[in-house]
């Protein structure tokens, strides 16, 4: 679909969104601090409890309990804590323990590389084909304007592999492997990145697959399978939530040409139209790191994520006012349409190559006429 707006309307929308942000910024305080520390406490308790329970991992009930607690710990650590803290959502607290630049998380991807590929590249150039490498992560065909080739016949297989090995997929993301194959990037540019990845992956493997299993003595194998399962559960969950954020049916993509010289209002519109929400209860939102409010997150990546829920009605009302779509739905619907897209795009487009349809047509308004 294409929405037609005048420049004045877009500027006005930008101002209205700025006002929403300002309202939240002025209200930040003790409650937000208490909230994130409660989440951290819960995560620490799950981790300590899980690891303790796995000291008896040879007994199935303890294996199950420990694996579940550790899975929850890793999900909370990666999503509601790690992802959000590294976005600078809590930098206003000036608390060194929650400073975006110093935070490290329990996953294979080094935090500094994540901050580059995600906070900068993905959040600035959201859904611009050929610029936002989160469109298919360099290995999947997630948009009809990506040129088809026979490699993409394996699209569902590659997606399945990415899902199960998600933390390693994320870890290798900043290497831009697809650009090395196409010759746009030199292998030497990756030397430092590779060193960082090796160090981080090594540490993670040592922790989950050597040290903690060894600590449980003869139960080495059962603890190792428990840790591997916890990592897998986290991978499946993180992949699913993240794919629901940008790939369900109806999410728009953009070309480099149409996004050149974007105004703040246009940037906001791209963020809204390039993202999709998932409906759900309180616990679901927390476990998704509030990325179930991907639209609000992309508008204001640096606001504490617990605030997205409270501003969502206002954002949605603005979308209605300007005739913009607000993509939201149940988890099953969003993940279903994402997988449908993965299968559909394994095959070439029926009508040949297509460019993305412009999501918004900007028409000159009164300002230009005057």
């Amino acid at each position, binding site marked *: 679909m294409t929405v037609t707006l005048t420049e004045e309307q877009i500027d006005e929308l930008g101002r209205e969104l700025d006002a929403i942000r300002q309202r939240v910024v002025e209200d930040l305080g003790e409650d937000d601090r208490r909230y994130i520390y409660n989440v951290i406490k819960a995560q620490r308790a799950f981790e300590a409890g899980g690891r303790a329970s796995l000291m008896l991992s040879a007994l199935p009930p303890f294996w199950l309990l420990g694996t579940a607690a550790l899975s929850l710990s890793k999900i909370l650590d990666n999503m509601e804590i790690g992802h959000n803290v590294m976005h600078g959502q809590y930098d*206003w607290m000036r608390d060194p323990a929650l400073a975006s630049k110093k935070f490290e998380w329990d996953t294979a991807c080094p935090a500094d590389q994540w901050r580059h590929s995600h906070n*900068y590249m993905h959040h600035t150039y959201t859904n611009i084909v050929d610029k936002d490498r989160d469109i298919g992560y360099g290995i999947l065909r997630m948009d009809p304007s990506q040129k088809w080739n026979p490699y993409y016949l394996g699209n569902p297989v590659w997606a399945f592999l990415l899902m199960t090995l998600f933390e390693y997929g994320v870890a290798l993301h900043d290497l831009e492997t697809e650009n090395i194959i196409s010759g746009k990037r030199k292998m030497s540019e990756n030397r430092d990145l590779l060193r960082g990845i090796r160090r981080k992956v090594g540490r993670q493997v040592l922790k989950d697959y050597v040290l903690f299993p060894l600590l449980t003595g003869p139960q080495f194998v059962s603890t190792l399978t428990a840790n591997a399962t916890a990592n897998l559960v986290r991978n499946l969950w993180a992949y699913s939530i993240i794919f629901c954020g940008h790939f369900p049916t109806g999410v728009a993509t953009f070309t480099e040409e149409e996004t050149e010289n974007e105004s703040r209002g246009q940037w906001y519109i791209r963020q809204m139209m390039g993202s999709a929400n998932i409906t759900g209860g309180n616990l679901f939102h927390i476990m998704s790191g509030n990325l179930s409010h991907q639209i609000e997150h992309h508008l204001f990546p640096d606001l504490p994520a617990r605030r997205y829920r409270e501003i969502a009605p206002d954002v949605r009302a603005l979308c209605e006012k300007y005739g913009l779509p607000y993509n939201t739905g149940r988890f099953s619907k969003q993940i279903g349409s994402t997988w449908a897209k993965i299968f559909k795009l394994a095959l070439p487009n029926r009508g040949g190559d297509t460019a993305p349809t412009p999501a918004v047509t900007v028409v000159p308004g009164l300002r230009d006429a005057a």
Partner: protein
Amino acid sequence: MDRYLELINPMLTVRELRAEVTRVERSTADSVTLTLRPTRQWRGFQAGQYVELSVDIDGVRRSRCFSPCCSQHRADGRIELTVKAHPEGLVSQWLYANAAPGLVVGLSQAGGNFHLPTPRPERILLISGGSGITPVLSMLRTLVDEGYRGELVFLHYSFTEADVAHLAELRDLAATHGNVRLVLAYTRQTEGGDLHGLFEETHLADSAPWYAEAQTYLCGPPGLMATIRAHYAAKGIEDALHTEEFTLPVFTPADGDATGQVRFGDTVVENSGATLLEQAEAAGLTPEYGCRMGICFTCTKVKTSGCTRNVRTGDLNRDPDTEVQLCISAPVGDVAIDI
């Protein structure tokens, strides 16, 4: 690691230095004296030095410097801070209203060059004004604990007698130690005390006639410090004067002005009014950056001093040693960035 131990007890830390408030006294109407028990990382201090204390106020970590006023030889290793609730002091007001035994605060190791030399000078003049009493009181208590035999004068300026923190103890020290003389100067009270009115040269001659041959340690409000400094300079004895600035000048920017200098590490440029990132680049520096619109936090650097304005929200940030996003922060007056 400290985040895990916190679950059990916030005072159980591996790396972080913290302190627990163990005692709270309100010695004057607008000040509060806290006794702190530091965690085991505390390396002690020298009388006259300061520590940085951090508390969370409305969710934001705020840090301010305070000078311990106890003896550096205190047997139980605790430190005592007297905090005056300044009308515009966010942290001091908060501590005055909220400090209670059991409160755990962030603490830094002691710092600063304002301390006594070893061996101790033969004659010492300690001068303080208002809440500047704390570092010199620490010096006095330390010298007494060391059994100091030299001549020692403690000259303190306050509005009235009721504003003198630790008055009873000061009188007691002077009464029980023949070499210690307490001189109280009141600027808004004409009776009692030893001297009245603002500082005059005769105050020095009256209380410590030998001051030109002694070492003087001075801490107080900017006006008092400037007058005394000028007097020592005029007499050519400024080397015998040691001072501690305990109030930072508060800068109030006018609208849209671009004044002062911006310091990026060793590079200094005239403030052009542009964002810090643009000014750094104009100066030939290449700080790391990303989105250039305030969302990715790649360009975050530590502002060591000065005031910056967030160009998106208009908010001013006056606190030293805080992180700022270079791409959306413009300097207001002199600013120093650690690049």
